[in-house]
Structure formats: structure tokens, C-alpha cells
């Protein structure tokens, strides 16, 4: 099925070359009710407690450490929680936008890494220029690299019909190995001691907003980008096209007004841009260096961030804050109570599954089931509602 990018994508039967379906249709209800969010959180905490008991950790000290690490002090709030919210937010926006259009971009992790790597690569040639020029250039370069990385998956999907779920995950692993090579090769620090890049000169770092904290200017960029994305999605024609393709690709195609393939390619690009932006900002604002474990899985956590926000850009700000707190708390839990911090990814996964379950339950109990689970039989391995 070698149709050109401009062509229609219907009528194919290869597994890879399915029409994008309503993968996200069931997850697009406008906002969980506040009560449901509280319920989900309570369930998450309960599950965490159960896991702690099961693995033989004292529950109360661990949970105390969790809350202290997230909100226990001014420093914890600004320099642990908010600082983690920023990359999670950008990556969450990337995933939310993609899922909204039915593009299952699971590759935010790789796009984020490539973005950071590009910003790192630009730091050396720009080190003697004005920060006013260098910082925007590094940010734009990082975002562009993330966009290009996602476009690989986009072209594979639209030109060769390769499922983006698989291709983006493969690209994550490739990005990880690429980073590993860069920090031992072309981008390694001049001393050649550790597998990491040279430290970013202070003049090129994103300014810290509050003295004595690690909170950097990225925290102001994130809401601006989120609101801009929301505006674009809900108040412009091209944003409408994106939502229409995600809601019902068949209808969008037969309406004839929407070039589905072109719209999807744009979504891949923008999604990658957002994740790459997150990587560049993390490098410029927090790590000041590239190394192999640059991201503790921000791109994967972002999936939970986006789904819990019901794929709403402004909602992502809230869920990114929540997960930022969770990750900050998890680190404190490991440090102070000896509980492995990976435990939070179990909680994240269960929260995703709970959202899915709530959706299915709603679909079964409400009359508007069709509107939610996409009864149009978009033959996607994703439309399997």
C-alpha cells in the first residue's frame, strides 16, 4: 500500500496500514469530574500503600517521605515538584496532541532525548554568542530535532503504513543508543572522563527565577505553550481539522475538506516539536549536560499525564503538576525510606488503566456509548474499543 502522503488512507488491510481510528475517542470526554479525580488519586495512594505493605516497607514513614519530598518545604515545591512538572508538561502536551488526532505517539521519550542532544550539540558553536541569540536557537534547534525524530514515524506510517506505536518505541531505543554514543564520542566532555557532555556555560543557562531554588524560566514557558496549543486546537480551522481526524477519520475523509494524511503529518511534527522542546528546556534549565540517563522516563510518564488530563492541553498543566509531585515524592521516598522509586510507575500504569476502565464503564452505562467508543468501525488496532 504505497500511497503517496497526499493520498487517502482508507481501504487497506495490512495491519500496519490501518486508518487512524478512534483510539483516543473514548478518552476525550471533556474533563473528569473533580470527584472522579479525587477518587482516582485515592485509589492510587491506596494501591501505593498496598504495594508498600506487599514489599515489606513501612507505610507511614514512606508516605510521609513522599509528601515531604513533594510539598514538604518551599524548596521541595519549587525545586523538586515544579522542576519535574516542566519536562512532564511538555512531553504530556506532545502526547495529548498526538492522541487527540488518533496518532499513538509513544515516542515522546526518544523525541525528548533527541531534542536535548540537539540543544547540547548547538551549545558548543554558540558558546561565545549572546545568550539572547544562543538560548532561543538551542531551544528551537532542540524542538526541531524532536519534530524531525517524530516525522520519521509519521512518514513510516503514512508512506509505508507502519504502526506508529511500534515505530516510535523503536525510535526511543535508537535515540537512547544514539545518546549513549554521542556522550562517549562527538559530544563528550573535553576531559573525556565521564560519559557526558561538557557543562553548559552559566551564561547560556536558562535563568533561575527564584534565588536559592532550581526553578527556571521554563516554568513560565510551559503554561504559555499549553494555552497556545489549546487555542490552536479549539479556535482555529487547522486545530479543528486535527480534532476532526481524531474523532472520526472516516467522516473527516468523506467530508472531503480535510486532507487527512497532511493533517496527521502535521500532528507528528508538532507532537515531536513539543517533546523536543521539553528536552531542550530540561537541558538548558536543569541538567546543563547531556548523559545517558538524562530522562528518568519522562516520555513514558507523559502518557499517564496526557490520559489523566483527558488529552486537554490546559488539563495537562494540572496532571503534570500532580505527576511532578509524585516523582519528586518518589525520589524522597527512596532517599529517606528506602522504597524503590520505580514504584510510582506502577501507580501511573494503574491510573491509566483506571481511566480506561471508567471510560468503558461509562460507555456501557450511558446512551451516548457511540459517541465515546467510536462505533464507527475504524479498523484500527486501536479502535478496538
Amino acid at each position, binding site marked *: 500500500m504505497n500511497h503517496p502522503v497526499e493520498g487517502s488512507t482508507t481501504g487497506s488491510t495490512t495491519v500496519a496500514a490501518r486508518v487512524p481510528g478512534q483510539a483516543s475517542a473514548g478518552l476525550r470526554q471533556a474533563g473528569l469530574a473533580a470527584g472522579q479525580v479525587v477518587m482516582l488519586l485515592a485509589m492510587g495512594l491506596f494501591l501505593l500503600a498496598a504495594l508498600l505493605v506487599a514489599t515489606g516497607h513501612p507505610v507511614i514513614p514512606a508516605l510521609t517521605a513522599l509528601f515531604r519530598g513533594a510539598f514538604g518545604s518551599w524548596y521541595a515545591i519549587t525545586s523538586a515538584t515544579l522542576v519535574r512538572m516542566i519536562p512532564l508538561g511538555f512531553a504530556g502536551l506532545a502526547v495529548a496532541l498526538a492522541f487527540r488526532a488518533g496518532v499513538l505517539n509513544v515516542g515522546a521519550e526518544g523525541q525528548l532525548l533527541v531534542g536535548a542532544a540537539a540543544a547540547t550539540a548547538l551549545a558548543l558553536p554558540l558558546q561565545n554568542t549572546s545568550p539572547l541569540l544562543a538560548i532561543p536557537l538551542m531551544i528551537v534547534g532542540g524542538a526541531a530535532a524532536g519534530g524531525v525524530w517524530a516525522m520519521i514515524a509519521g512518514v513510516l506510517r503514512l508512506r509505508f503504513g507502519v504502526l506508529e506505536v511500534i515505530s516510535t518505541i523503536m525510535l526511543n531505543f535508537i535515540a537512547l543508543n544514539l545518546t549513549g554514543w554521542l556522550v562517549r564520542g562527538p559530544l563528550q566532555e573535553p576531559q573525556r572522563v565521564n560519559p557526558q557532555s561538557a557543562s553548559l556555560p552559566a551564561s547560556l543557562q536558562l535563568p533561575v527565577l527564584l534565588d536559592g531554588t532550581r526553578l527556571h524560566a521554563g516554568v513560565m514557558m510551559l503554561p504559555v505553550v499549553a494555552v497556545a496549543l489549546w487555542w490552536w486546537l479549539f479556535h482555529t480551522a487547522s486545530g479543528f481539522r486535527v480534532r476532526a481526524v481524531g474523532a472520526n477519520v472516516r467522516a473527516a475523509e468523506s467530508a472531503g475538506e480535510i486532507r487527512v494524511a497532511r493533517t496527521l503529518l502535521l500532528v507528528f511534527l508538532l507532537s515531536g516539536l513539543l517533546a523536543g522542546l521539553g528536552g531542550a528546556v530540561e537541558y538548558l534549565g536543569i541538567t546543563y549536560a547531556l548523559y545517558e540517563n538524562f530522562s528518568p522516563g519522562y516520555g513514558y510518564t507523559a502518557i499517564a499525564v496526557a490520559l489523566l488530563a483527558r488529552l486537554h492541553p490546559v488539563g495537562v498543566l494540572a496532571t503534570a503538576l500532580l505527576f511532578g509531585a509524585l516523582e519528586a515524592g518518589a525520589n524522597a521516598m527512596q532517599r529517606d525510606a528506602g522504597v524503590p522509586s520505580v514504584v510510582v*510507575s506502577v501507580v501511573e500504569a494503574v491510573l491509566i488503566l483506571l481511566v480506561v476502565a471508567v471510560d468503558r464503564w461509562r460507555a456501557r452505562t450511558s446512551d451516548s456509548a457511540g459517541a465515546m467508543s467510536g462505533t464507527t468501525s475504524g479498523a484500527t488496532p486501536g479502535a478496538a474499543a
Partner: protein
Amino acid sequence: MSALDVGTAFLESTVRTATPLALAALGECVSERAGVINIGLEGSIIAGALGGTVAAGIVGVGGGFVAGAVAGMAIAALFAWFTVGMRADQIITGTAITLFALGLTGTLYRSVFGAAGVALTTPTAGTFTIPGLASIPLIGPAFFSQPVVTYVAMTFAVVLAWWMRRTHAGLALRAIGEYPEAAVAAGIAPRRIQALAVLFAGAMAGLAGATLVLAQAGTFVEGMSAGRGFIAIAIVVLGRWQPLGVAGAALLFGAANSLQTLFQSMGWSGIPYQLFLALPYVLTLLVLAGASGRSAAPAALGKRI
């Protein structure tokens, strides 16, 4: 080393690394034939690796393989509950299941075996040499002097090929993936068969995970599944949903994995090793792109019944 030695070592390494991929992909092949694509396969593999590690320490290697299969099946049961039971989205559920299993195994491993970095060694499966055949030059060691689990994978490839083609149950399975409406009309219970197929895939993936530990690494490492679950899904595509084709495709990926050793033994050590580490993932992308335009997929793959 002579060219023959290099070739022999390369083939042996190919078959060894292909074994877990083949096991996972054969299971996934059955699941996809029933119309369910399980992105959570990765989760079953890592669960099988940890389950196999723990059980091998307690009851020995054989019990480790069994426990790995059970652990993989348990993770798949969660996936089946959501996708077959609740008819939830297969891709999102699978993604969550993988995240869940990676987190859970990491947590359990660190809680039980202390901080990360402590190498935990397990007993490993010895090789089972088939007398006579194993002394064939070049291919002998590769195909006839391997751990038992490799022969299990080979057997599964042949038996599944026969089972899918020649038995009533195999036909029912394929019918659900191809034409669920007709299958239902013929009195086949699709969701039960789908659930069983998913559980089988989980057990096979768990067995693959146990193989990584008990026949190869001899130790558990967090995240050691390293994307093999996703590679297995690509192998199914390359093998065109046919068990024998899947086994052949797994060998191709095993070869890509083994190129590193081959090049090193040839003295081409100037190539960065990350390039070799990335090779299977690059190959997956190329294979999937190359496999486009062939409609060998079950028609109802991923569809709601």
C-alpha cells in the same frame, strides 16, 4: 580463528539470541491471529524474567522456566481482562501494562534483592547436545547443541503451523481474526478463544523472559526485556502471521544481534558498540516499512467484536 570458526560462532549466537524472540513472537502470532494485538508483551517478558529468576533460586532451572511462563501469563491475564473482557482499547491498555510490569518488576527486584547493582546469579540451563547431529560442521553447534528451551521453540513453530492449518481449534482461531461475524454465526465463542490466545501469548512471552535469564544472562537486570516485546510484534509482521515464517524472521533478528560478535572477531572494533545495540531496532523499522503493501494481517486485527 578460521573462517569456519567465526561462522560457527556467529550461527550459534544467532540461534541463541533468536530463541527468546521466537518464543514471544510465536505466542503473539497466535494472539494476533485471533484478532488481538498485545503491546503489553514486553510486560510479560520482563515478568517472566523476574519470575524465572526467583523460582530458579528456589526450585531450580526447570521450575524457573515454568514460573516465568506463569508470571507472563498473569500479566497477560490483566491485559485480557481489559481488552477482551471490557473491550478496552488494545494499544493504550498494552502500553499501560508494559509500564505496569516494568515498574512492578523493578520494585519487587529492588525490594527483595536490595539496591540495584547487586548482581544476583541464578543457576543456568546447560546445553543439550544431540549426538551425531551436533558434530556437523558450521550448523551443528547452532542447531543441535543448545539449551532445551531452544528445541522447545523450534517444536512450537512446527506444531503451531500444523495446529493452525489442520485442526478445528486452529481454524476457529483464524476465523475470529479474519471474519468474526461468520465465526460467531458458526457457533464459535470469540471472546473465550481470544482470552485463551492472549494467555498463551503471555505464557510464551514469560518463557522468553525466563530464557533471557536462565539460558543467557544468568542474572536479572531491571528492564532487561529491552524492547524485545515490540521486536516480537515486528517479527510477527515479517513472518506474515505464519508460525514457520515467524521462526525464520526471529532468526534474522538473532543474526542482527550477533553481528557485533562477528565483527569483533573479525577485528573491526572501530565501530561504536551503540551502533550494534541500535541495529535490531533499526532493522525492525526497515522490516515493517518493507512489509507494507502485503495484506497478510488478520482482517479483524484490533477490531471490536
